[in-house]
């Protein structure tokens, strides 16, 4: 049986984290293909619905990548995102999807290395945790 390959939906901010992903690409820092990157303009643009949707559709993890506090192109979208992530985490973790599957990370444009690090760590963590509890329920959960 092949090893469990977690699927991670990664919402990356256009300005910093997506640049870091590009930088990782051009620097040939390969990171696990488990990341399914969706570019958004700002981490603050990630609606809780998207995260819920991703989990309901079978994501094993959701990663939001934003600029470090102070870096945000839109000044503070990332800080607003952080509150929302805290809120959504409180909701989801009651039923089994906690901080371990739902990550917010600050990854600056230069941090190609950190991007890889985060991708590697999260993939490893999810492998350890196994598939998302929602996954077993298939499309019945939506």
């Amino acid at each position, binding site marked *: 049986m092949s090893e469990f390959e977690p*699927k991670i939906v990664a919402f990356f901010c256009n300005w910093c984290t997506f640049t870091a992903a590009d930088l990782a690409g*051009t620097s040939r820092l390969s990171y696990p293909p488990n990341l399914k990157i969706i570019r958004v303009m700002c981490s603050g*643009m990630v*609606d809780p619905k998207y995260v819920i949707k991703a989990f309901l559709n079978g994501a094993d993890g959701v990663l939001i990548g934003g600029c470090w506090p102070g870096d945000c*192109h839109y000044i503070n979208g990332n800080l607003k995102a952080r509150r929302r992530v805290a809120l959504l985490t409180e909701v989801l973790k009651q039923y089994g999807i906690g901080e371990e599957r739902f990550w917010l990370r600050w990854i600056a444009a230069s941090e190609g*290395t950190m991007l890889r690090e985060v991708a590697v760590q999260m993939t490893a963590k999810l492998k350890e945790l196994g598939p998302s509890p929602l996954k077993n329920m298939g499309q019945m959960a939506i």
Partner: protein
Amino acid sequence: MAEEKPTGTVLVVGAGISGIKAAIELAESGYKVILTDESPQMGGILAKLDYQFPTDHCGMCRMLPLVGREYASQYCMRKSLFHENIEILPFTGIDSVQGNGGNYRVDLRKRARFIDPAICNELGKCIDVCPVEVEDEFNHGLTRRKAVYQAVPHNNPRMLLIDKQACTRCGECLKVCPTGAINLDAQDEVETREVHAVILASGVQLYNTRDFEDARSYAVSPDVVTSLAFERVLSSSGTYQGGAIRRPSDARPAKKIAWIQCMGSRNRRQHRDYCSSICCMFALKEAVLAKQKGGPEVEATIFYMDMRTFGKGFQQYRDKAVEEHGVKLIRCRVQGVMLKPDGSLMMRYHDPETNEFFEKDFDLVVLSTGQIPFEAHRRWADLLKAPLDERGLLATEQPGMVRVAGKPGLFLCGSLTGLTDISEAIISGIAAAGEAAKFLTALGVDTVKKEDIPEPASKARELPLVAVALCRCGEKTGAAGLDYELFRAELTRYPSVGAVQVIDSICKADGEAALLDSLAKTACNRLLIGACQPFIYRRKLKDVARKAGFNSAMVEIFDLFGVARRGMAEPSAADWTLRAAGEIKADIHSLKYKPALQVNTLPINQTALVIGGGIGGMTAALSLADRGVPVHLVEKEGHLGGYLGTRVEHTIDGLAPVALAADLRQKVLAHKHITVHLNCEVEKSLGTLGRFESQLRFKNNGENKYLHHGAMIIATGGREGATTEYGYGTSEKVLTQAELKRGLTDGNVDVSEVENVVMIQCAGSRQKEGRRYCSRICCLGAIGNALEIKEKNPDARVFILYRDVMTYGFYEQYYTKARAAGIIFVNYSPDAKPRVEMAEGRPVVKFTDPVLKEEMELPADLLVLSTGVDPGESNQGLADALNLSLTEDGFLAEADSKWRPIEFQKVGIYLAGTAHSPMPLKNVLLQAEAAAQKAYTYLSGRELPTAAVTSMVKDALCARCRRCVNICPYGARSYNEADKCIDIDAAACQACGLCAVECQNNAAEVRGWGDKQLMAAIDAKLMDRPLASAG
């Protein structure tokens, strides 16, 4: 038919911060810009800096245009910059400049890169095989690179090139290059271009450890680095990627780090009697970062002479660095560094606090290396045959300003105008652009004309059917392992995909024709194009699509090459192609649900409102009015002139404010485009860029007047600082510097008989209570007054009691001059302030001499207090009226202290002068020009389209809870009390999507980033296998 006017074109030399800013400003105003840089990359020094104070982070992208954002790239500026009106020529020097203003002929030398970026597929196989290793200058020699290299790690496209000096012509790269992009015999190309104006933004040389003898006492090991090199040590893309702070020699963690200030500056002996201005804050920032990155056990010590925290927020940053982060400041200039065998760096210093000597080992020593301006100035003077002033700098019409004397159409910005930090580079960049724009307006040249292809009707309501066009780009992408046939077959399986075309070189004429041809035949109503460098070709490709009947909103372009490149490391081409196809699915799905987007023309009232009739306000008003913009100038007093313009005859650096104000006043009053409103203040202002309505209230009769205008500039100035310290108010012998200055001018203060004059700096400033900030002008003011006293009465003894002498930049020469004149400077610490007692009607000043550690006392004939500058009393009211915020200190809070220093989050309102923070007149003038230019960009009468992607409100769904208004960082949303609905300022909105998330039922949404699109993309990303129905 009217005669066709030429398109105004400006050459901007130097693509550092100020050059880029000048270029963007001109481009946004509709002029054509050629932006060159000597180095192979853009960004100047800033490309190397990941962190800027005060946030200790980056915010470079904030300098991109806001209103015309869709004409420019919208991604991190470290990747690259694109603007439709800017032609960027990196690695290009200037051979000669001929002709006159309005008609310059410039020989540009495009240096050979030896790799043709148009052919190169950027896979970097050549880098792998290149046998030559040299120091990587981007990382200041702390790392090594090949002779084939990428100048900046973030660059995208990578823009590889070959270092001619290092290359051994072994030819290995030629063997592996799959596209034949390498030509080792390539030559520089010299191209003559005609431009109307030239802006020099080349920056100046930086002091370094290689070329200067005085650095050798310190640079005894690789672990002694310059401050810029230390940025690379800190950087995540630098020497120790993502790790702790390590010392270069052996990569051991550096725990004890020292900074040595004034390296290369403030040195008469080395003929560098100026202050580099930026190093103090740079060092403080680096020390804080070192503490943050390296952990609490890191010791950060800064050896300094004066900690020059003169700018807005600087003093607070210093306080925080010391009090919260534990950065240690020691006022001592050390003689040198001694290297021990274990690599540690020993320094001996005198600690003035304990009055003891210490010998201490450090792991890493950072030299705060300053700027060396003369060489760059001399080079330009030779090339332009322009004169140098007595300091050896290019002569400008006013000192430190942007117009080169006697050279119409030639302007300076950035560090060529003096030694500048980021915000000043930005301001001078905008000011230079403004002067250039004024010059172009006077020449009567035109702005860039857009080709008019009618927008076809959107077929958004039809059942989505997507056409996909993939550019093969001369096998460039093919070489990345993309199997086009498989790609095409895979995509064709999706039900919503109507056609997949693979086209050779879409960017070329043939490819364009092929694309047009294939689209003409298709029944599809949406189009997805995969091409390299999508931003560069975006408009052109959209034009082609429009010709083929596709509405722009229904066309998306993705970076096919970026997708391909991500597969570089993939072992199997076939597998990779399938994965790439999988990635594209999300784009297809998103496009399917994309709504129709519209671009509207912004309604613009071309009038400007300038608040504040001081020198700054009048300068801004004239700058606009001279370009035909009608201006309302509002002044709360009954006369124009402001503080400086009515009280200060001359400044130390040779400006004459009263005369200047008189001249400006005359011009303002006579100007047909300027309407002056005296004795009134702005009570309330509503609206958005292009349509503001402001209510003026007249002080004398309480009447109101309503003005309609398209933009406004706040130049309300400040107030003389007040104090109750040091016996002020108890004796006529105790006065403020301002009072002394007036007294010296009008003769009311007679110094012919005085024996002892004592001046106390920072009275009521730079402390927790009262003015927390440095007022920036007082040291200069005190020195000016002291010199005047000395001139009038050489026998007078003048003592200046100071904390840090804030004579940054070339102002240092006045400090030097003052000392040479025998003025005695006495440092005091805020813990042990001077004390003043009155005895026999004279103030007796007691203080501790910091050098001799002895108590001194001196009866003063005059005690003069530098009380600084208080924020203008109308700041609060103005902030309320305009819905702006104030800093804790009571000055107007700009959008971003570094990158948008004279703007507010809301577009259309700009800031100049002391309303921003205390500053010398030179900076007021620069800011006034810059603010005028910002306003002019939108008031010039050109048609201003909104962005296509902006937020919207679905009125029927909207509950008017106004959470979107509250959350919008740009003030783009407001509640319309009259119509009971949410208004959107389409110019201000940057489509960040915060409102859409805050709005729980999507009554607020960003067009083009809707929930349906995003959720379809999530679906696509998580689809395990292609649709079964597609088989």
